[in-house]
């Protein structure tokens, strides 16, 4: 018995020592990790400083380094692969800090930015940032705004009681070719061979989008950038500096393209037309068609729209009409429900079809009679360009599918015609019910979302040329 107690005591002492060692090791490891993260973060900022060409930006980065409270940094696991490091900055009542996204294994910093918060109260901001990335903002009401280390605005997200209200992005739109006036609304901007336009875009979670045109810079002028500045209330604000001037500021015009789409899939397609490839899509399509590019368009989801030719009875996929009391502004109604199974390519085809209607509505004094003329016009003059526009958006989509999708929606009058028969033969189609080359076969498969055809929702994105993209949404 005595011997047993002796062994028990020895064992307890042994395990007690082991546990202490483990705790010490773990604590030491955390400290080393934390130090490693901080060192990497400092290097990350230093690299940004080296890369910058501007003296102002260098000074800005130096100030950040000086004001950053590295000793109060906190970190939190985002997921298996990443962790967040948050470093408060002694400025703006501690509402500002540095955020770093760090890979767990390699400690490599994937992303770093300056985060300014409004009305966000938390003891551990790294956890708030994790909540932001995980879309779990609990009961937070406030905003998160990000700037890069050159003080350029990156994005802003607004929340009310944990629910996201909006996201705001800056969009840089580079035009590289001919002399154009591509701004849909403004006629007054001087354009030349290489201009860059800047927009501040707010995507409201009710589906609407506000686009504030901020400024344009052309050719060899200094780049026009959306930057933050400190307003009289000692808060960050956003404005554009172009060639040293405020090239837009508060008096900027609003580009009148609006979107009210709630269906996520349809929204992703419309957004691709409106945001990422903004000027390379709607206006570019209109230009390609030799059309008026100064149309005010709204894209609105309406899952109960019926045909104007059969009002109140037949549900349809899309319709374009003049806005109430306007003979210029137009609304493209899109029925998400009617296209719920369709591929993104199909939806894009419908949108291009409607954009052409919008333009033809202006050319022709719209009535039902002219609707059929519009389809005949569309068939006669725009098929090739429609197909190529689809190809631009979906580079992997075979041309034959682009054509089949473009031929969709022209109505029985056109498809009954001899010229339609001649055209489809030229494009390698036929009318044979059994044939895979039936002109409607591919479009129908996109419409019903058959497996192996096109891009299903959530399984890929429309191609947006890199030069046209704005900042990435986290």
């Amino acid at each position: 018995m005595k011997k047993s107690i002796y062994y028990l005591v020895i064992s307890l002492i042994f395990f007690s020592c082991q546990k202490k060692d483990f705790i010490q090791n773990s604590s030491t490891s955390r400290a080393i990790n934390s130090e490693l993260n901080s060192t990497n973060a400092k290097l990350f900022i230093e690299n940004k400083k080296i890369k910058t060409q501007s003296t102002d930006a260098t000074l800005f980065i130096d100030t950040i380094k000086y004001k950053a409270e590295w000793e109060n940094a906190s970190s939190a696991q985002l997921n298996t692969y990443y962790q967040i490091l948050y470093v408060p900055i002694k400025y703006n009542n501690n509402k500002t800090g540095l955020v770093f996204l760090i890979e767990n294994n390699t400690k490599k910093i994937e992303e770093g930015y300056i985060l300014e918060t409004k009305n966000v109260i938390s003891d551990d901001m790294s956890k708030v940032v994790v909540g932001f990335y995980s879309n779990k903002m609990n009961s937070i009401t406030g905003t998160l705004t990000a700037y890069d280390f050159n003080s350029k605005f990156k994005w802003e997200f607004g929340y009310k009681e944990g629910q996201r209200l909006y996201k705001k992005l800056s969009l840089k739109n580079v035009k590289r070719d001919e002399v154009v006036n591509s701004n849909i609304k403004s006629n007054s901007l001087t354009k030349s061979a290489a201009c860059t336009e800047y927009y501040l875009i707010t995507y409201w979670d009710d589906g609407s989008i506000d686009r504030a045109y901020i400024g344009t810079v052309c050719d060899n002028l200094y780049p026009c950038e959306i930057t933050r500045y400190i307003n009289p209330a000692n808060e960050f604000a956003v404005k554009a500096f172009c060639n040293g001037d405020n090239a837009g500021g508060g008096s900027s015009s609003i580009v009148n393209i609006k979107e009210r789409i709630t269906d996520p899939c349809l929204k992703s397609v419309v957004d691709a037309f409106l945001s990422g490839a903004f000027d390379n899509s709607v206006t570019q399509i209109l230009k390609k068609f030799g059309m008026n590019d100064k149309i005010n368009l709204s894209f609105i989801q309406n899952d109960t729209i019926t045909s104007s030719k059969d009002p109140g009875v037949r549900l349809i996929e899309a319709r374009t009409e003049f806005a109430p009391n306007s003979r210029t502004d137009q609304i493209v109604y899109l029925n998400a429900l009617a296209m719920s199974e369709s591929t993104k390519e199909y939806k894009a085809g419908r949108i291009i079809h409607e954009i052409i209607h919008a333009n033809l509505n202006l050319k022709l004094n719209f009535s039902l009679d002219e609707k059929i003329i519009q389809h005949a016009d569309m068939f006669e003059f725009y098929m090739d360009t429609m197909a190529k526009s689809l190809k631009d958006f979906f580079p992997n989509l075979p041309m034959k599918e682009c054509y089949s999708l473009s031929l969709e929606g022209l109505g029985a009058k056109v498809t009954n015609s001899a010229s339609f028969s001649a055209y489809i033969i030229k494009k390698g189609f036929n009318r044979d019910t059994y044939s895979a080359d039936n002109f409607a076969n591919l479009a129908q498969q996109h419409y019903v979302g058959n497996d192996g055809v096109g891009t299903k929702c959530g399984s890929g994105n429309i191609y947006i040329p890199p030069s046209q993209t704005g900042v990435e949404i986290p």
Partner: protein
Amino acid sequence: MKKNLKILVIVIFLMPYSVQAQEDSLYERNVYEFINQIRFKYLGNSRTDTIKLRNFLSNKLLFQGVPFVAFKKRYPNFLSEIELHELGNQFQDDTTRFDLRENGIEKSNLLTDSAIKVLNKGNFTEKYCTYWKFSKPCFIRNYTICAFSYEFCEYQRTILYKKEQNKWIFVAEIGRIYGD
């Protein structure tokens, strides 16, 4: 004996016509039963008022945009190859028109050829959005499967129905010419 032989020859000679007449009558019965059922259930839901209808059924230009490849991919086992061919032949090869009996379709106003000619000289609405065009219902599997197409206002739709417990029910849209 000679007289009996004569009668037999006549009967034998007329037999195919009699079988054909029976078949025609069976087809006709099924046509009216089918259209009257789906007329209210599927053609426009709320459209219960009198519709203007061409006074004949014809397949000409009414089974456009029906790609069987797409249908087979979506519903691989619903119809056999033979059945698809049977339907396809009816869509394409049947060029005869089926004149509708007055009052054969409930709540319909049958338009004569001359009335249609007048409408066709009118504007778009009169030409395309005044009256419906119905195809001949194409039956297979002993009148239990039917493909039917209609057109109104440039919009053409081909639908497959099946009969269950004496009721025609919608199976799938197998083709359409969309026009909005």
